[in-house]
């Protein structure tokens, strides 16, 4: 019987490409022979735009890169600016931004898991349960900084304003409730035989491949590499915090899901520890000017963003705006292995694998 390969363009407009992403996929029946990712549909030139804005104004651009994790984007950028201009951040400001970024990690992982399960075909139920929890985090952010997604909360030297009084009881309530909600999610998803059958032993990413492709974040840890920048290369006050790093054993889609789920629990613990250690004080040192003017030089501070190692490479020529700004976007680099991961699997696995990589097109294209 003569058969024919079918080539299909999946995306840029497709329900499960998480934005505007296109894959040119060749199928043999249901089996994937080739998958070529094509990106660039959401390119906005953020890096170039940063070159003609002041250091404070660029913060607003970073919000819009990975729009599910604005706080960590702010954090990565601000750390780089602080290193560049030699600003010592105020203590309370750092604790606040650690709380904010850990909450953001919970929110981002919630989105990642929710949409992964949605790609598996669950009819939005786990997604909505998780978005319900994320909503609470966004409300906390709204209290902190007046915006839910595009926060622009951090400033060189700390944060722009202390969290209001009503923030702390709300945060405590959230920390009390969240573990129960996570148990619910685990009941719904972790033992579910359909999810196990769909995700286990699919798109296995080998440890060496992952390291060679410079994969970072939960995806790397799911492959069993103990690499978490909060632990390996502590920034802010992460040395003072103890937390565990969940690692996968096989490196398949199921491990990537599990690692994210357990990281949410660890993040909750980190926030609790931060709450114990935070002390009253100024949130931004007095001497930091509104218009930061760093000396000539360059800086790069990598942080552990929800999706992987995120860093802003900034070059200063002594002016009020960066001479060059480059973003090491984890989404883009994690996406590079998609082709190698999906070949030989079925059509349905393509979307699950894509979902398990957890990319954000805003960050891939910038």
């Amino acid at each position: 019987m003569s058969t024919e390969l079918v080539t299909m363009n999946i995306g840029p407009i497709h329900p499960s490409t998480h934005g505007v992403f296109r894959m040119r996929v060749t199928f043999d029946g249901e089996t994937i022979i080739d998958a070529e990712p094509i990106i660039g549909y959401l390119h906005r030139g953020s890096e170039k735009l940063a070159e003609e804005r002041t250091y404070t104004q660029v913060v607003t651009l970073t919000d819009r890169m990975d729009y599910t994790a604005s706080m960590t984007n702010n954090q990565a950028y601000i750390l780089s600016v602080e290193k560049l201009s030699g600003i010592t951040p105020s203590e309370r400001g750092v604790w606040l931004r650690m709380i904010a970024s850990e909450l953001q990690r919970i929110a981002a992982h919630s989105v990642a898991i929710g949409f992964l399960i949605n790609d598996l075909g669950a009819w939005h139920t786990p997604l909505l349960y998780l978005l319900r929890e994320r909503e609470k985090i966004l409300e906390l952010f709204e209290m902190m900084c007046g915006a839910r997604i595009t926060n622009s909360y951090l400033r060189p030297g700390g944060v722009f304003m202390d969290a209001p009084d009503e923030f702390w009881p709300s945060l405590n309530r959230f920390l009390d409730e969240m573990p129960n909600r996570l148990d619910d999610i685990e009941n719904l998803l972790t033992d579910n035989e359909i999810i196990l059958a769909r995700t286990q032993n699919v798109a296995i990413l080998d440890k060496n491949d992952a390291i060679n492709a410079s994969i970072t974040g939960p995806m790397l840890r799911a492959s069993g590499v103990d690499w978490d920048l909060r632990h390996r290369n502590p920034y802010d006050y992460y040395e003072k915090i103890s937390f565990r790093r969940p690692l996968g054993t096989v490196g398949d889609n199921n491990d990537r899901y599990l690692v994210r789920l357990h990281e949410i629990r660890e993040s909750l613990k980190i926030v609790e520890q931060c709450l114990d250690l935070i002390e009253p004080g100024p949130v931004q040192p007095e001497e930091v000017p509104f218009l930061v003017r760093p000396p000539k030089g360059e800086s790069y501070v990598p942080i552990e963003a929800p999706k992987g190692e995120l860093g802003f490479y900034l070059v200063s020529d002594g002016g009020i705006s960066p001479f060059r700004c480059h973003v090491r976007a984890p989404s883009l680099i994690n996406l590079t292995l998609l082709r190698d991961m999906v070949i030989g699997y079925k059509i349905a696995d393509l979307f699950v694998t894509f979902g398990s990589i957890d990319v954000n097109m805003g960050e891939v294209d910038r």
Partner: protein
Amino acid sequence: MFGIGLLKGLFTTLKNLLGPVFTVQYPNKKVGLIGALKFHKKSPLEFLRTQPNEFIKSLAGLHEVPEYPSQAPRFRGQDFNWFEDRCTGCASCAKYCPLGIIKIETTPGSRDEKEGSSYDIDVFDIDIGRCMFCGLCVEACPFDALHMGSGFERANEKRKGLVIPVDELRTAIKTPSTWFRPQMEDKNYKPKEKGAEIKDWHDVGRHEQPSDEELTEKWVNER
């Protein structure tokens, strides 16, 4: 046993079926008679007498009562609040806007110049069609003249309608957000509460209003 996980999942969804609903029915929700009475705080007879049409509607569960999501005081709203008396026309906001969407034109002041030179504001247009509500303009304002608003219902059918002209800024009801205004937060100001409108420009300032003696001391005696 095979299938236990599936059953666990089924029970989780069942638990949530019986649990509370998280929907906020902005801008209004339809309620029956009980809900309507609870909202209006009226007895059934009174409700029937005052609003007979609505009474009949409420029997069918179609009476509409407004419902708004909770909103933090720092919420950066869509409308800007501007106090002309505080504004010196320095255009710091226009300079710090990352997108350059604030257009400000001034002429040298015809106002009382006792407190230092000031300018008349002829044009103060904010194009919120391109605004990303980062609030840097508010952060930059040295005299607390410009505030983020707390409203979010300024949708428009035309792009032109998305430009806030100076006249609207002058006449608008001012319920500023407390974004970057710690003095407002210290007063525990809640823009979404009833009667939160600010009429006096002195109320939003960073400092207490100086008395005449203090002014004389600072501006006359010290020099």
